[in-house]
């Protein structure tokens, strides 16, 4: 695995404005040997069914995918709970979320809510979207 310094140097080559537009980044660690031999995960067919259902929810609600919503439209469709709103504010103060990042987090959170078949965005969906944005602040 690359050293932290190398990872940071590579990250620094991506400008803040560009990095801000990446919605999902994941830290993938080498799996432990015993986790490879345990039972298989969810089938791709099951995941596909969930994605299809989520896309349909979005289409029925707003006539387009969440990614295509304008800033005004995503705010309208967000339907955030009080806890979700507080979590989003905390995202700005505690995790350095930018203004541009705000709407992008909402779109991803809206999608997470759709994947769970829920009408409104809850705190866990905001946290999920923020988890996907976790990346090099420094």
């Amino acid at each position: 695995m690359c050293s932290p310094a190398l990872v940071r140097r590579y990250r620094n080559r991506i400008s803040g404005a560009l990095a801000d537009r990446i919605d999902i980044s994941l830290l993938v660690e080498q799996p432990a040997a015993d986790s490879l031999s345990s039972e298989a995960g969810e089938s791709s067919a099951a995941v596909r069914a969930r994605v299809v259902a989520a896309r349909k929810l979005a289409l029925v609600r707003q006539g387009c995918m969440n990614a295509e919503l304008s800033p005004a439209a995503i705010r309208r469709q967000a339907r955030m709970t009080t806890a979700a709103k507080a979590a989003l504010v905390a995202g700005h103060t505690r995790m350095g979320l930018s203004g541009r990042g705000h709407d992008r987090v909402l779109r991803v959170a809206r999608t997470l809510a759709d994947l769970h078949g829920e009408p409104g965005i809850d705190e866990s969906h905001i946290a999920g979207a923020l988890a996907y944005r976790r990346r090099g602040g420094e």
Partner: protein
Amino acid sequence: MTTAGWRVDRGDQGYPACLEYLDRPPAALFGLGCCDLVGELREERAVTIVGSRRSGGYGRGVARDLGYAAAGAGLVVVSGMALGCDSAAHEGALDARGRTIAVLGGGVDVVSPPSKTDLYRRILARDGAVISEYPLGTVPEPHHFPARNRIMAALAKLTIVVEGRHRSGTQITTKEAERIGHDLGAVPGPVTSPLSELPNELIKAGAVMIRNSQDLLDEVLGVGVIAADVFGPELEPELRLALSAVESGAASADAVAIQADLDGSTTAVTLVRLELMGYLAGDALGRYARTALREPG
């Protein structure tokens, strides 16, 4: 936001009196932002928080918490805007809607390090100040930083070291604070970490041990004058499990998932929720460390 730069010469009104303690006080100070904040600074109402540029989740999380508590109690937080602990202390102060002063090793119009441009703007936008003894346009050079550190040590009665190694820039700040008779505080760290060398040694030599915000407030304002907000919100069972895993040493999401026996996506969400509540501090590589915030009850 005041963008016009200002300058005060030694002997002028508006030149911080505490700089006169130094052997060779700066002949002039150059600044951006609020000049009254600097001119009217009283060292017993300020705290300097410094530490390593290499600090990870632990050092940065503690520096942030201390900056937050100090600024929340109306103290001015002084630091050097460097990577790691310094910028975390400034950020904590800003999050508490407090005021903070960054002392730079180059001209105040040369943002150093450049990656802290957002922080620099936030400091100025929140009525803080960025100051330097070097004229506008000066590019920071290695030998500027020891000189910069002496200014940080002079501006506050108490200097707190969060993390640092022997023979580091942080140590220069502590030596200067000692020399001019200012107080030193240090945050204890694991004895196996090189970044604990300096703070642990300072504690052994008699520096005030700063374990949390309350220790800081007690030291600056007097014991029990202000109670730090040390308790976070209630935790659901799932959050409790993940928090215990981090407390017992799991740093990455994968390690927490295994230890707490939660699935991967639940763990990722749970860790961010704990971070948003203030219980954890995450770093750039997705590793988590515990903050000083305690559970209610």
